[in-house]
């Protein structure tokens, strides 16, 4: 009788146990509190919000579109193309007489979009693979880990360049290839966590109840390692932005007239010998601000979430 009762309660128990570990409200609430106490991290979040707002709404302040050539300054970019309020080119113009402000807005859109979408998607892909490897172990684990090791020993640029060269250079294409290149993101750490968790009682309980592996992984394990995934995402996003910028710099990134921070930095670097320094300074400043903010946000998240450091 009493065992029967216990069994009836078991699903509730398994749920509760899984829930209790992390979703225990206090974990995330504590983490939020710790994060908010970290002044650098909070300032960085504000900076990042400003950047995002700039990317979204910046166009409404622009006097020019990002593709339009200002014939008045073309040919005298060095003398008259600098940043000024007078002709509406707040950040000056680029080599072709296009409004740099509008181009930086457009570039910020690209870089941030690629960073967040591709970054998050890669970590999700990597985490799912990591969880699969960790949960099933054995042959599955061997195959995934083998592929992981080999992949990490190949410079990603090879794959990237070959892929981009043959499949065009649209925004979607870019996001897709970055996800493919980064399929290993977070894999190792999630695998380790899952291997650790899969022997806990609540997983056993769930398994005994005949829950499918799929349900166990997604309903019971993933919520408990969400904190790892969050930390890792905050690390991967700046890396992805960097990756996008590098390939755009190399000319195998986003296609003109669309642009990105990396592409703009590349143009600025190419023309700086002519003394048009603003063409390098503005995009580089945006890139650097984004990287600094993301660095401190990642740092703050790590401090707030990682139980090891507490």
């Amino acid at each position, binding site marked *: 009788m009493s065992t029967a009762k216990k069994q009836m309660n078991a699903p509730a128990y398994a749920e509760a146990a899984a829930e209790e570990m992390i979703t225990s409200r206090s974990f995330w609430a504590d983490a939020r509190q710790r994060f908010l106490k970290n002044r650098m991290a909070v300032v960085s979040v504000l900076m990042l919000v400003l950047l995002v707002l700039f990317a979204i709404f910046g166009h409404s302040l622009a006097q020019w579109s990002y593709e339009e050539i200002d014939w008045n300054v073309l040919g005298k970019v060095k003398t008259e193309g600098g940043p000024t309020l007078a002709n509406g080119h707040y950040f000056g113009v680029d080599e072709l007489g296009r409004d740099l402000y509008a181009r930086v807005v457009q570039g910020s859109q690209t870089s941030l979009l690629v960073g967040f979408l591709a970054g998050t998607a890669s970590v999700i892909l990597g985490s799912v693979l990591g969880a699969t490897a960790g949960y099933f172990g054995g042959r599955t684990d061997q195959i995934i880990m083998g592929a992981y090791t080999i992949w990490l020993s190949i410079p990603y640029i090879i794959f990237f360049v070959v892929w981009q060269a043959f499949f065009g250079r649209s925004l979607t294409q870019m996001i897709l290839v970055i996800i493919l290149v980064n399929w290993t993101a977070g894999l190792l750490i999630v695998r380790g966590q899952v291997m650790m968790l899969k022997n806990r009682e609540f997983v056993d309980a769930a398994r005994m109840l005949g829950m499918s592996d799929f349900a166990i992984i997604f309903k019971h394990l993933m919520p408990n390692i969400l904190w790892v995934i969050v930390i890792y995402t905050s690390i991967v996003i700046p890396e992805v932005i960097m990756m996008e*910028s590098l390939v755009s710099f190399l*000319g195998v990134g986003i296609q003109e007239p669309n642009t990105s921070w990396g592409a703009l930095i590349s143009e*600025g670097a190419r023309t700086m010998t002519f003394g048009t320094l603003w063409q390098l300074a503005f995009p580089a400043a945006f890139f650097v601000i984004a990287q600094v903010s993301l660095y401190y946000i990642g740092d703050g998240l790590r401090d707030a979430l990682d139980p090891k450091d507490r």
Partner: protein
Amino acid sequence: MLNYTLRRLFTVVPTLLVLIVFSFYLMRLAPGGPFTSEKPLPPSVMANVLERYGMDEPLHVQLWTYIKNIVFHFDFGPSFSQKDRTVNDVIAQGFPVTLTYGFWSAVFVLACGIPLGIIAALRHNSFWDYSMTGLAIFSQIFPNFVLAPIMVLLFTLSWGLLPGGGWNGGQWEYIIMPAVALGTSYMAGVARLTRGSFLEVMNSPFIRTARAKGLPERTIIIRHALKPALLPTLTYMGPVFVYMITGSVFIDVFFSTGGIGQDFIDGAYSRDYSMLLGLAILYSVLTFTLNLLLDLAYAWIDPKVRSKL
């Protein structure tokens, strides 16, 4: 150890083969090709060109010929875009350049990173220690493609100290900026890692034993702590080499060194199959070789690993 090296080579071969087959089909099956241009060539000319490059044969035959030529003649085929040059020519000319500054860059990474890390560890929480944390953040924020233009701005355009690009037969002035711009991030990484592992080793029981022996601190550091403290650094160098190869493509392009990175990118633009494939193979072989060397170095330092080889 020879045994181990051979075993490793046996895993490299299939990996390379997969890479070749995959890239080969990826390129060939994608729309467009090296001879697709705005004005299509007349069909007869096109057929002629294709025949000349052996591209009229079925794909698997082409692949087989390609692999055969590499294995038996070390011949990576003609370039499709650079008219009179073969891929071998391009490699022979560009690879030494990339390898040269890459080597010096690695020297810079280790020769500056390791001492910096050790100093920071010895002067724990001092000015040195903090400046190193600063350097680590700095290098995260200024990756090579931001750092390189800034360096050119300062050292070439403002102070006129160093040439802003070119190679000139590999004189040292031409090597410095590429090597430093390529290595700075990883130098900071090595420094940070060395600092951490050095601190850890200095707290380990066998260092306590060395102290109990009455050895002077300097002997303890050099004789007992250095080797184990460098093991994590060595492990870290594996991915670093991979990243540096990626970085070298940028350096070749930015500093116009004439290294293979430029040819690789050009190959992508002009869809020069044989160039892309040849250089991809070269890059992969380079990474495998570097990783193998690292593993051997690791085994040389760690007797436990050595006895397992």
